[in-house]
């Protein structure tokens, strides 16, 4: 799906994603801070415990000399070249009794006399190895009286906190993102589901046009927030439909009212003696008759939804039209020919409407074919009916326009108002059929209507 600035879905996803990222970062920061604190507390407790344990190895001989006798493993730790651990002990007056490191001893010597039970300290960039140390001074009761034992270890609080953070990210943080993803999925799903009726309504709206004014957008299942909009659109469509109905009624009435005076005019011209001017006037009246006739047909086609579901024999329907128009075609100095399979061709369609369409196609072909030639109407078993003439054909650029209402070819002087083929196109569309314009094999134009077979 395309993400646009105005898409609710995109906005929600973006905002939720931002919120979840922020929450995840905050959570990680909190965990790191807590981790550091915990590590520090844990470190202090551990150092205190260590000091107490190490006191066991401090003793005062009978000679009054303090000794530190560490077991081998501890010795390795406290006298290592890396100087990871420091140990020193002082008496209450601040006198140093034992020490594992000269620099540590020197530092302690500068301190005031020890006091209190427990005091943490911290060295930064300490000693020749320039290391950070955490330490603690604890009052311990040794076998030879109270001692303030100072223990320090190279600071590994960061490492511990880092370890905790890593553990947190590995064990917990990914679940935040999983949770976030799940929330996003739910949000997207809800939106898509909520907007599904909107899409359905949009599809219906696609079909609304001058020929389908009765369509209304469905209000079922629509989110309540969108109901007022859809209701307002539907109300607007109601008003448009009324407007169209009035206009169509007007077209129908106007065409209808024109018929009587036209009948009088036609009859009056028929009654006159033949002459060149009378002939022209008769042609003019005939052209006007055709126009009024076609306007009525268009108005009817617009106002009544034709039922195209009937089982209809295309062969018989076409034959009837050819039969009906043959005398007129002869009067127009051409003939009609009919090619059809020997069996009926059953299609799904409305016979009167199809007759209207075919009649328009044949009339059009008769107007364009050369005098003395045949206009061929052919029905095929696959549900097509075509009309071919032997006229000049339809210029390529015009093909796209010939089915438009009131369109007429340039420099073409012939009766009609350019409605005939528009009517054909609308009837074929109502049948869900296809219309195709090609060149006929003998020159001229061939227009073919394809209609759905009755299965």
């Amino acid at each position, binding site marked *: 799906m395309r993400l646009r600035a105005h898409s609710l879905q995109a906005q929600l996803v973006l905002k939720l994603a931002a919120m979840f990222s922020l929450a995840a970062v905050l959570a990680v920061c909190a965990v790191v801070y807590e981790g550091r604190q915990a590590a520090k507390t844990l470190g202090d407790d551990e150092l205190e415990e260590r000091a107490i344990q190490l006191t066991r190895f401090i003793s005062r001989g009978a000679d009054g000399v303090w000794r530190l006798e560490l077991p081998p493993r501890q010795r390795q730790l406290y006298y290592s070249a890396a100087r990871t651990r420091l140990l020193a002990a002082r008496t209450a007056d601040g006198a140093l009794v034992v020490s594992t490191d000269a620099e540590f001893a020197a530092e302690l010597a500068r301190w005031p006399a020890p006091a209190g039970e427990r005091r943490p300290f911290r060295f930064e960039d300490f000693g020749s190895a320039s290391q950070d140390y955490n330490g603690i001074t604890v009052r311990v009761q040794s076998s030879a009286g109270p001692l303030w034992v100072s223990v320090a270890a190279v600071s590994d609080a960061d490492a511990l906190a880092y370890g905790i953070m890593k553990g947190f990210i590995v064990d917990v943080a990914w679940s935040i993102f999983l949770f976030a993803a799940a929330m996003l999925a739910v949000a997207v799903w809800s939106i898509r589901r909520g907007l599904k009726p909107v899409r359905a309504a949009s599809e219906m709206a696609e079909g609304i046009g001058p020929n389908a004014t009765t369509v209304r957008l469905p209000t079922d299942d629509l989110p309540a927030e969108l109901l007022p909009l859809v209701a307002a659109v539907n109300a607007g469509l109601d008003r448009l439909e009324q407007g169209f109905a009035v206009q169509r009624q007007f077209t129908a009435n106007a065409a209808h009212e024109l018929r009587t005076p036209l*009948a*009088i005019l036609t009859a009056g011209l028929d009654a006159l003696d033949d002459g060149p001017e009378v002939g022209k006037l008769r042609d003019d009246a005939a052209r006007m008759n055709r126009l009024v006739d076609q306007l009525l047909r268009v108005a009817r086609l617009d106002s009544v939804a034709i039922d195209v579901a009937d089982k209809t024999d295309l062969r018989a329907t076409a034959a009837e039209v050819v039969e009906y128009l043959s005398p007129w075609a002869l009067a127009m100095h051409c003939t009609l020919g009919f090619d*059809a399979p020997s069996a009926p061709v059953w299609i799904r369609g409305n016979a009167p409407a199809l007759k209207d369409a075919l009649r328009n196609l044949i009339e059009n072909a008769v107007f364009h074919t050369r005098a003395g030639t045949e206009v061929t109407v052919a029905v095929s078993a696959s549900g097509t009916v075509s009309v071919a003439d032997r006229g000049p054909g339809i210029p390529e650029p015009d093909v796209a326009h010939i089915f438009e209402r009131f369109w007429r070819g340039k420099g073409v002087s012939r009766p009609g108002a350019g409605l005939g083929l528009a009517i054909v196109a609308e009837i074929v569309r109502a049948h869900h059929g296809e219309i195709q314009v090609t060149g006929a094999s003998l020159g001229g134009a061939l227009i073919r209507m394809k209609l759905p077979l009755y299965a």
Partner: protein
Amino acid sequence: MRLLLIEDEDRIVELLKAALERAGFAVDAVGAAAAGEKALASIGYDAAILDLGLPDGDGSRLLTRIRSAGNRVPVLILTARDSIEDRVEGLDAGADDYVVKPFAVSELVSRIKALLRRPGSALGTLLEAGNLVFDTIGRDVRVGKTPLAMPRHELAILEHLMRRLGRVVPRAVLEEKIYGMEEELESNAIPVHVHHLRRKLADAGATPVIHTVRGIGYLLIEKSI
């Protein structure tokens, strides 16, 4: 031959009356359904021309009433309405034919003649087309004054074409007409008969011409085009 014209539009009455009188008919005209019904009840018209949109009622109701009263006069409906429903309604009411306004007067006259040519109608025994005359009782054909002899299946075809003058007669209909006259009907029997008929008419100087509508049938037209 007396016709009744029931039409309220004065100019149409005037023009139609003149045209029909030129064609040799006597025409009475009334402008309302009530007057038309009265006239049809009192005088035995040979045919009636009825406008559907009359000031005092619908013409198709008038038609239904006279038909239920047993009047079989041939009726041609004249109307500005041309939807399929309107046509069906008019024909259901008992009309014999239907002409939509605006119409060519010559077409209306030939439709009236066709109604009168139907079996049992006024012109039923004598069929005419240009200088061609067909006597359906005596079964003989004349071009002008000259009799024209032809075999009976050609006569049958010509009779049918003349009854449907100016309109297409499907080949299948002609095949039905001569079916039973010949022991075996060859697939090209009709084209062969029509070919002979055409030549005979041309040789005798008849003005009507038989046209072929390829794939459908034939039609006879009064004068060659």
